[in-house]
């Protein structure tokens, strides 16, 4: 936690109201987000209990599993969820624009559907739903398979898996949690653990007095948690008896379970939309659109993989895919940190306090040129700042030019404490004289960062089929090879117990019937598949 966030939290505690952590909104917020508030069954990992969902605050759709341990009812819930969610997730597939990259033109969906859940466990639940649905067998896959599901179910599983995986990319916005969104923009006077409770968090941000721990005379929470877990008092005293009545075929019992679950979901539903409105009131950061475009590319690529008939995402990433994902997320994190700082003086203040940036006034500018046949401008700019950057002589600093371009400089000298003599080295055009506006004048306010504004990507990785011996060699195709069969390395604890598939985009299975068969064969079935 940065110093400035600590300060904001202390101020929030002292004043009893949340304090802003941002002057702009740092995440994309769709015009028509799909709000999804799921509930899970206590003691039955991943067994859905119900959900409220919809794109219109006035018309939430309630889905309920009246007996969560009944697998047929669970599958009926998943089928209905697919029927409600898929039209939204597939609503932006065909509205495309075209982007030119050199000689190549690529298709890009003009928008992407957004999914909002209350909190981080909600994101995990989306991931779990995706995991439990994408390998489900349909009647078309195998007429003899038990419990066949409608074709929409595995398809939704793949979309939810994609959204869940994308949400791990820093700065992405396809799937967001409301507590994370609000927590990025406002500081409360409670702990970060308490901030996971959407109702408690909104109490601070929306300045409404609510005691989320208060219970009614019957011992029920007046402000139920926003799921996916339910309150034990609700489970024991209200839900369990109602489900028992349902099991006993008591007339009206199903309606009663529905009402109970709706009662638990309603407050979170309202909080979600209150949160959306609070966030809408913030102006969008300048670079949010650029990041959203990456989300649209991600959406487009997944659309293309589905359309190409590729198999569902494998259970586990292979070595190369895992390394590639980690590298791209680290790059995304650096990009997000830089862009938030450039978009928002409050975010920049945090970086200045940690010595990663400094702002000040230009006190002197001396024109100078580089040596050589074609001298280039290398003006010396003296900046006075009270910040304390970790910048040594020879170190690099970067700033944004008024026209949006970038400029780098190196520290030529630090003649006295608080004075920085910088030699501008780029961003001044191609001529002998610097381009107009590219060199600051005495009296200008400037802000330099020690971090780069658009971090570079790393080198490429080998293709999965070229995975080197240090990482176990190429991944095994199909689901047969397990650790015992591949040389007894199972005792190392690290060898993966399942065979893995090549990432769909790279494999030739589409044209090779034998390989294709291996690819559509399921991985070994585990208990997770019956969630």
């Amino acid at each position, binding site marked *: 936690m940065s110093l400035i966030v600590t300060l904001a939290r202390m101020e929030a505690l002292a004043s009893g109201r949340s304090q802003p952590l941002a002057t702009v909104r740092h995440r994309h917020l769709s015009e028509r987000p799909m709000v999804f508030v799921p509930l899970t069954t206590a003691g039955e990992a991943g067994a859905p209990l119900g959900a409220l969902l919809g794109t219109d605050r006035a018309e939430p759709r309630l889905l309920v599993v009246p007996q969560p341990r009944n697998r047929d009812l669970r599958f009926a819930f998943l089928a209905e969820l697919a029927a409600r969610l898929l039209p939204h997730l597939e609503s932006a597939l065909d509205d495309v624009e075209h982007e030119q990259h050199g000689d190549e033109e690529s298709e890009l969906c003009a928008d992407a559907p957004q999914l909002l859940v209350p909190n981080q466990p909600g994101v995990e639940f989306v991931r779990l739903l995706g995991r439990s649905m994408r390998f489900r067998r349909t009647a078309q896959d195998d007429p003899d398979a038990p419990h066949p599901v409608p074709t929409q179910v595995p398809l939704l599983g793949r979309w939810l898996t994609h959204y869940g995986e994308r949400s791990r990319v820093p700065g992405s916005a396809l799937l967001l949690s409301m507590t994370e969104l609000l927590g990025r923009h406002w500081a409360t006077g409670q702990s970060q653990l308490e901030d996971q409770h959407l109702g408690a968090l909104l109490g601070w941000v929306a300045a409404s007095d609510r005691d989320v721990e208060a219970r009614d005379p019957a011992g029920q929470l007046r402000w139920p948690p926003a799921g996916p877990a339910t309150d034990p008092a609700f489970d024991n005293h209200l839900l369990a008896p109602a489900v028992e009545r349902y099991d006993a075929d008591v007339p009206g019992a199903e309606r009663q379970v529905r009402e109970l679950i709706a009662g638990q979901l309603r407050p979170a539903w309202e909080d979600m939309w209150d949160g959306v409105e609070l966030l809408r009131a913030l102006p969008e950061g300048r670079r949010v659109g650029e990041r959203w475009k990456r989300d649209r590319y991600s959406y487009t690529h997944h659309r293309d993989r589905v359309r190409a008939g590729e198999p569902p995402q494998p259970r586990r990433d292979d070595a190369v895919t895992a390394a590639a994902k980690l590298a791209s997320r680290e790059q995304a994190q650096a990009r997000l940190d830089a862009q938030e700082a450039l978009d928002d003086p409050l975010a920049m203040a945090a970086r200045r306090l940690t010595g990663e940036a400094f702002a000040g006034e230009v006190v002197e500018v001396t024109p100078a040129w580089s040596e050589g046949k074609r001298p280039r401008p290398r003006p010396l700019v003296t900046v006075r700042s009270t910040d304390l950057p970790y910048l040594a002589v020879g170190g690099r600093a970067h700033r944004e030019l008024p026209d949006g371009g970038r400029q780098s400089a190196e520290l030529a000298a630090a003649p006295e404490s608080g004075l920085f003599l910088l030699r501008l080295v780029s961003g001044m055009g191609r001529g002998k004289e610097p381009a107009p506006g590219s060199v600051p004048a005495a009296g200008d306010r400037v802000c330099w960062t020690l971090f780069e504004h658009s971090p570079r990507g790393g080198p*490429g990785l080998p293709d999965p089929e070229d995975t080197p011996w240090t*990482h*176990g060699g190429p991944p095994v195709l199909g689901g047969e090879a397990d650790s015992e069969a591949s040389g007894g390395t199972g005792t190392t604890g690290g060898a993966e117990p399942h065979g893995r598939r090549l990432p769909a985009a790279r494999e030739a299975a589409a044209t090779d019937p034998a390989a294709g068969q291996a690819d559509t064969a399921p991985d070994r079935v585990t208990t997770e598949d019956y969630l």
Partner: protein
Amino acid sequence: MTRPHPGTHPGVPEQPTPVAGGTDHRQDPGGSHHPEHPHAPETSRAPGHPVLDEFDPSAAADRATTAILRDTLYGEQRGVIVDSPPGAGKSTLVVRAARELAAAGRPLMVIAQTNAQVDDLVDRLARADPELPVGRLHSSDPEPYDPMLDQHPAVRTAARIDDLAGLDIVVSTAAKWAWVRTDTRWPQAIVDEAYQMRSDALLAVAGLFERALFVGDPGQLDPFSQVVAEQWAGLSYDPSASAVSTLLAHNPELPQHRLPVSWRLPASAAPLVSAAFYPYTPFRSGTGPGDRRLTFGVPADGSAADAVIDEAATGGWGLLELPARHTPRTDPEAVGAVAEVVRGLVTRRGATTSERDTVAVPLTPERVAVGTAHRDQAAAVRSALADLEVPGAAEVTVDTANRLQGREFDVTVVLHPLSGRPDATAFHLETGRLCVLASRHRHACVVVCRAGVPELLDAHPSTEPVQLGVTVKFPDGWEANHAILAHLATHRVRC
């Protein structure tokens, strides 16, 4: 699933062979403990009294080196792993192995982790054999390598691998090697600081070589990622894990050696560092008690800083304890105390004698270092030193544990990572951080700390979630911190 130490692996039967530095590194010269008992008497054995009974450090180190070179040059396996405790001659081993491989006519690529490490290796190679053609592959940034390399006539520097074709040895960072594309693989590679290399970095370069010698120190700081990588925890190729753990998970049959002697750490430090951080792979100091001496020409002025300096000069360790208090990270009193200790060290006309020198050598500011956990603490110490106007203070190295890795000084002053903290987070408890800070010195180490850290540790037992398939690292930071503090308590000076 539980492995006693990152350097070991299950499946290798314990061998009772009493050869120090053999391929099985669970054997123990003291023979007193067992991997199943992390609380074996080792940690409670009084450090500072090593038993040098018939132990010839040079012979033990030679035996280990010979076995390593034999496996590297003539072994059947594609990889050889060498665990090296602090100051055990890892660089010397790398230089020697590189020269022997070159002499055997095997083109060699050397992979290090930072540019400073690469420059240092190239410099050592060129000094060891001025005729040896060595290539230094570098980036295309301005000033990509240390200009001192230009004074070696046989060293060629280039930003493109094609310009270094035909050289016996090419050295570069893992990050630069990852950009190299070539049709022919190098028959042999040496990977330096392999425990600090991330698995994904090895993945990017492993296609460039046929076989490799992996050298590193398992006790230092683990590699890390700025983003959450939990979803791959437990996979053998977790990209955020260390290169060696991936390598061993997939190739458990690879021979593992270790260097048994620390030439850097004095007799006062090796037993403690070995017991606290390497309980299953103990090592000895190359020098005995009394082989190294630290003396001061100016007597103590009665201050606590001078008293702790004298304590450290005699016993090798000193703990300057400030009253218990919760403080911000840049605790002004603790930072001030660090600066006072540094002032004493550089102004009291210190002199060192060691096995290297027959006459006393002055303790100069560049032989003194200050280690901290955070960058802002290092910056605060630097400005406190400047405020005190300590002569030569600018030559004193002040840096974080991450940046002090692999470096060596005569005397170090450490601001304890847990000093003044209300909590003990995983970052501040990390074993490697304390190990780096406590193992940089040839003569003495002074730790500056607020009182109450043992109580803080007792209030914060390790609570990191257990991940299936992930190597449990022993000792954990909690236990290592207790071991170090228990020993430091016997060298305590109160402020």
